[in-house]
């Protein structure tokens, strides 16, 4: 408490000085007559930012975060309050920039992460929404990669442009019309291989593209974090998660987004071309994190392990 005495010839003047010096919050403790006028005792209690006692972690939450192997440094941020809100604070989330006129979006990632299928799904979504995207593949290395994507573009009734080299890619992009969204399916890239990173950078620069890294869910958290950081250093600025439906433990997804500060955008949640990819929101991630899926180790009648899937 700050306590101060004010003497003035009259009350109005004394009060004016109190307000001027201590502000409207000042409390008048008392007034008394003194020789030559009036004395006002005023006090101000600075807003004591006494921190409220930290809320107790929800035991179910703690158990779930433990099961998913969410990195220890993130758990205190996530174990209290509404989980979706906590996730929105702890991790970056964003939409993919696929509006008309946006820079091209180039998808990279480790081999087999699901880049091509994701490209096909994004193209499908755009076509169904009435936009005809320009789809390119720079994946000339993998046998059948072009064929896989072409199967989708044929169904969608759009062209697929093959441009494995930065020069051909650049030339292809000059045919972009009316700022149509551009999807580029790059080949698999090892972010720890300098030559492959160089190749990725060349494509990115030529296309002046946003780079989204496609990572499967279910990776070991430390491994996922290493990969995400390496891709971010190679120029990636967005994160797409695949196989969210198949993974039991999502600590890797959380670790990748957190350690590389890569915004979570889309997630693969099923086989459908149109509905197999959803915007990965804090709410969806929260719901999935609260699910503890454990293999039952029982054998189904066909001899394969069956899994006890939590509902939802």
């Amino acid at each position, binding site marked *: *408490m700050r*306590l101060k005495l004010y003497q003035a010839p009259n009350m109005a003047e004394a009060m004016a000085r109190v307000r001027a010096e201590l502000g409207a919050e000042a*409390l008048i403790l008392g007034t008394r007559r003194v020789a030559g006028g009036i004395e006002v*005792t005023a006090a101000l*209690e600075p807003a004591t930012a006494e921190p409220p006692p930290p809320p107790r972690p929800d035991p179910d939450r703690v158990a779930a975060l433990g099961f998913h192997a969410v990195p220890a440094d993130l758990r205190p941020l996530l174990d209290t309050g509404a989980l979706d809100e906590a996730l929105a604070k702890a991790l970056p989330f964003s939409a993919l920039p696929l509006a008309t006129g946006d820079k091209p979006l180039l998808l990279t990632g480790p081999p087999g992460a699901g880049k091509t299928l994701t490209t096909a799904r994004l193209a499908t979504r755009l076509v169904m929404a009435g936009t005809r995207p320009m789809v390119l593949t720079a994946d000339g290395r993998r046998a059948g990669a072009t064929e896989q994507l072409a199967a989708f573009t044929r169904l969608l009734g759009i062209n697929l442009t093959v441009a494995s080299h930065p020069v051909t890619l650049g030339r292809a992009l000059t045919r972009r019309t009316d700022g149509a969204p551009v999807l580029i399916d790059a080949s698999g890239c090892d972010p720890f291989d300098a030559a492959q990173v160089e190749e990725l950078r060349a494509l990115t620069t030529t296309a002046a593209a946003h780079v989204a890294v496609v990572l499967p869910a279910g990776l070991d958290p430390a491994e996922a974090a290493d990969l995400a950081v390496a891709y971010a250093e190679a120029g990636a600025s967005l994160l797409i998660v695949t196989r969210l439906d198949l993974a039991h433990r999502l600590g890797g997804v959380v670790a990748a987004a957190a350690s590389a500060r890569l915004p979570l955008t889309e997630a693969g949640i099923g086989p459908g071309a149109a509905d197999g990819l959803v915007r990965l929101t804090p709410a969806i991630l929260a719901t999935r994190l609260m699910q503890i899926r454990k293999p039952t180790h029982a054998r189904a009648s066909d001899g394969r392990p069956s899994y006890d899937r939590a509902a939802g």
Partner: protein
Amino acid sequence: MPAPLMDAPVMIVPPANPRQIAIASGKGGVGKTWFAITLAHALARAGRRVLLFDADIGLANVDVQLGLTPVHDLGSVIAGRTTLTEAVQRFAPGGFDILAGCSGSGALSALDPAHLDRALAALRRETMRYDLVLLDLGAGVERAVRQMAASADTLLVLATDEPTSLTDAYAVLKLHNSDRTGGDARVVINQAATHATGERTYANLRRACTTFLQRDPRLAGVIRRDDRVRDAIRRQALLLTRHPSCAAALDVEAAAQALEV
């Protein structure tokens, strides 16, 4: 079927505990030690068995004010050289007992909270023969002071009308409010020009407490400014013996009486 007699509740009468009254001020130099001594004297004159415990951490001076040369002090109790009972000294002129502090040693503040808790529990256990134990706390609001204030049954906060004293008294009340929510804390205004001005000083402090802390400390007494207090202190004498009918003496006796309520 009527309940058998054996099932009737047994009433347990607890042994009478001395009431512990801590005296604090926040700011030093407002007459706290003098007030503690005179209050102890007034209570003793009213027939109470009183122990005055000089818990003025670091700078104990009850013994100095009374011209005593204690054989043992709190330091020897904490060091284990003597028991608390042995360390207590009878102060015959006042009719009360004194447990001297240990001036300058900082023995109390050096105790960790758990150790101090045990010392306070021992103080309660070994002072059963008294009606009242007064703790003269040190100035300031350091941890050991707060802990002792919170452990007492009643806290008396002494203040004068000086802004610094009021601010510090408020700080003591605020900390006591968080250390012991709902505890019994009361205000004594010292060195007041008149009862009316003293009550106005209390009203100011009370308004701050009710507004900022949602707490309403009672007024335990207004002690008027009196030159005979200084005279008694200078002569290392008791005010109630030397000037029994002076204004300050009457006011302390009234405060002692009001304490029983």
